[in-house]
């Protein structure tokens, strides 16, 4: 295979000292930024942009990309240890990671996240190398109509994430939709629900809300759990990752990577939505869906594999077509321009050495991250030995700084604290937080794409069934919604029948 020859050359090139230095700086900063609550990959890449451009050429892009996929490894750390999403794509990792840490299995959970990130990264990288050109063309087939159908399909899958009380889950979803509407309406123009606040004009930052709703709310409700005693009892063994977890959750790793890759390639969807879908897929097809959310390794495997896979996939349109599909890759495109390269369809043709060396640096970086994070895992997991009265003040300080740093604004801290307070009230009243977060991420995409489609079709709703991809997705949506109901009904009928036989 010619591709693998090119890739091998790229990896050799990427081992050059200056590129290696760029990659390592990138992944370390990425780990840090991913782990700091609030700050995510797009902020991280932007922060490193002026520094990285100084390295020049390939090393600069290797460094920026390193920040991106490094933050996908780092985001899981605070999600698992403290229940505070380190960045938006690691929100779903909180659901099973944090309960595991509370059970005293922080090291095991962190280990799983590292394996999952590595496997997801590996599958993403293979896809990047082998499929990048055909898949980037295929992704172009997704216009507003197809996106609408995809969002409907996504929402039908994630309906499994509701929780006990279905009505309250829908209320939470509606609140999330509303939060997503705040700010200027990008389709028609007026500012909605901003109450005259400048800080709300661009809408709410997803990670600010997520940090409050999950992280601060979790802290607010555990203030008295342990004044002197530790959060949970630990054994030394629990600090270390376990290989057999990776084997037992191989299906979640694979499906998560696949979902992450496909969603990651699509323009404007992003890694966060990919993690939500992959978690929902893993739960829906699991033999024991009821255990998701209670602290099982499979619940970490799926989203963590997905976000790493998506991070590589989202670079495909950038490198093959010159299209930045997300905020993070848009900043990377700025980096390409600054080092004097023209991102576009000819990048592969004109600068093959550059592209393959950058791809090579991804492989080097992905493997380096595994060793780095595995070495750090026991030390990180030991953070939970710190008594609450000292740990929580430190965490609050990091949260405050991290949230402030997103827009250099104390208004963001205010919003996060408010989300935390609301989060406590809602969870105590049995309103689940996950649908709210889903509504906030998927709601705007659904609304905008429906409205785009109808502008395109001049209000004709038949357009949704005239596009074959959209039609297929809608049929899948109906299947996803009704098959479980039908199965349930059949089972109900069967059980009395069986009993009647006896």
């Amino acid at each position: 295979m010619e591709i693998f020859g090119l890739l091998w050359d790229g990896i050799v090139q990427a081992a050059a000292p200056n590129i290696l230095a760029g990659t390592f700086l990138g992944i370390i900063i990425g780990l840090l930024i991913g782990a700091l609550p609030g700050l995510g990959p797009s902020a991280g890449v932007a922060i490193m942009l002026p520094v990285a451009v100084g390295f020049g050429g390939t090393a600069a892009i290797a460094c920026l990309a390193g920040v991106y996929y490094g933050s996908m490894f780092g985001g899981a750390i605070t999600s698992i240890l403290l229940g505070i999403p380190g960045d938006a794509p690691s929100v779903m990792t909180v659901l099973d990671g944090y309960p595991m840490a509370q059970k005293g299995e922080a090291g095991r959970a962190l280990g799983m996240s590292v394996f999952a990130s590595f496997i997801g990264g590996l599958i993403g990288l293979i896809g990047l190398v082998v499929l990048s050109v055909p898949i980037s063309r295929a992704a172009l087939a997704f216009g507003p109509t197809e996106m609408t159908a995809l969002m409907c399909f996504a929402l039908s899958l994630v309906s499994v994430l509701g929780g006990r009380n279905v009505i309250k889950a829908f209320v939470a979803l509606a609140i999330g939709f509303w939060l997503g509407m705040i700010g200027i309406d990008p389709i028609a123009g007026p500012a909605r629900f901003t109450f005259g606040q400048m800080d709300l004009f661009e809408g709410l930052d997803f990670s600010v809300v997520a940090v409050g709703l999950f992280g601060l709310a979790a802290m607010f409700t555990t203030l008295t759990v342990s004044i002197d005693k530790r959060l949970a009892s630990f054994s030394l063994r629990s600090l270390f990752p376990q290989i057999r977890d990776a084997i037992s959750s191989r299906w979640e790793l694979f499906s998560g990577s696949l979902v992450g890759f496909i969603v990651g390639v699509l323009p404007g969807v992003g890694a966060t939505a990919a993690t939500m879908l992959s978690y929902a897929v893993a739960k829906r097809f699991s033999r024991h869906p009821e255990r998701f959310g209670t602290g099982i390794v499979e619940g970490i495997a799926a989203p963590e594999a997905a976000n790493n896979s998506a991070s590589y996939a989202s670079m495909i349109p950038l490198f093959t077509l010159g299209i930045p599909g997300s905020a993070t890759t848009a900043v990377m495109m700025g980096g390409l321009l600054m080092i004097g390269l023209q991102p576009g369809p000819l990048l592969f043709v004109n600068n093959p050495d550059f592209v393959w060396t950058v791809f090579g640096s991804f492989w080097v970086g992905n493997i380096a991250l595994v060793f780095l994070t595995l070495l750090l895992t026991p030390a990180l997991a030991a953070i939970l030995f710190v008594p609450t009265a000292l740990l929580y003040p430190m965490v609050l300080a990091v949260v405050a700084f991290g949230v402030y740093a997103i827009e250099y604004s104390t208004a963001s801290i205010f919003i996060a604290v408010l989300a935390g307070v609301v989060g406590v009230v809602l969870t105590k009243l049995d309103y689940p937080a996950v649908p709210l977060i889903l509504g906030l991420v998927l709601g705007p995409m659904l609304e905008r794409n429906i409205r785009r489609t109808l502008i395109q079709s001049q209000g004709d709703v038949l357009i949704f069934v005239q596009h074959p991809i959209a039609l297929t997705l809608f049929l899948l949506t109906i299947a996803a919604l009704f098959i479980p109901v039908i199965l349930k009904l059949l089972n109900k009928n069967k059980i009395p029948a069986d009993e009647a036989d006896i």
Partner: protein
Amino acid sequence: MIMQRLDQAVALALGLFGVYLVWAGFGYGFMQGTTPGAGFFPVLIGGALTVLSLVNLVRSLVGAEVLEDAMTTGDVIRFAAVAAALFLYVWLAPLLGLALSTMALMAVTGLIIRPSLEPRFLVRLALVSVIFSLVCVWVFGNLLGVPMLVGPFGF
């Protein structure tokens, strides 16, 4: 019982909020020519919120949903105190700068979580507050280049 009342109050408030969304939605424009306008989704979401919340309210009133009282009075007081400290922090940070106000926030929340005057704890909390705040200022301000809010003493 308190939780039950709170649940009903929240359901009622959300129901009314849904009505507000519908009203605001019509203000933004329900349709824009042949396509849904800026108010289309607010109206739908608001309507759904109102209907669902009324169902919740009725279910709670007839006792179909029973919530257990999850927090003790001590829990609630600590939660309120920490939240208040954070809101105060948001107000103080632009005045005192991030370094000083973060030190204060850490010390105060530490004392709320563990209201103890034991000298060893106080010394450790004070040290952690001062050192950790400065570490944060260094990491964010110097390493990541985030412009810091500075107080009257220039830091």
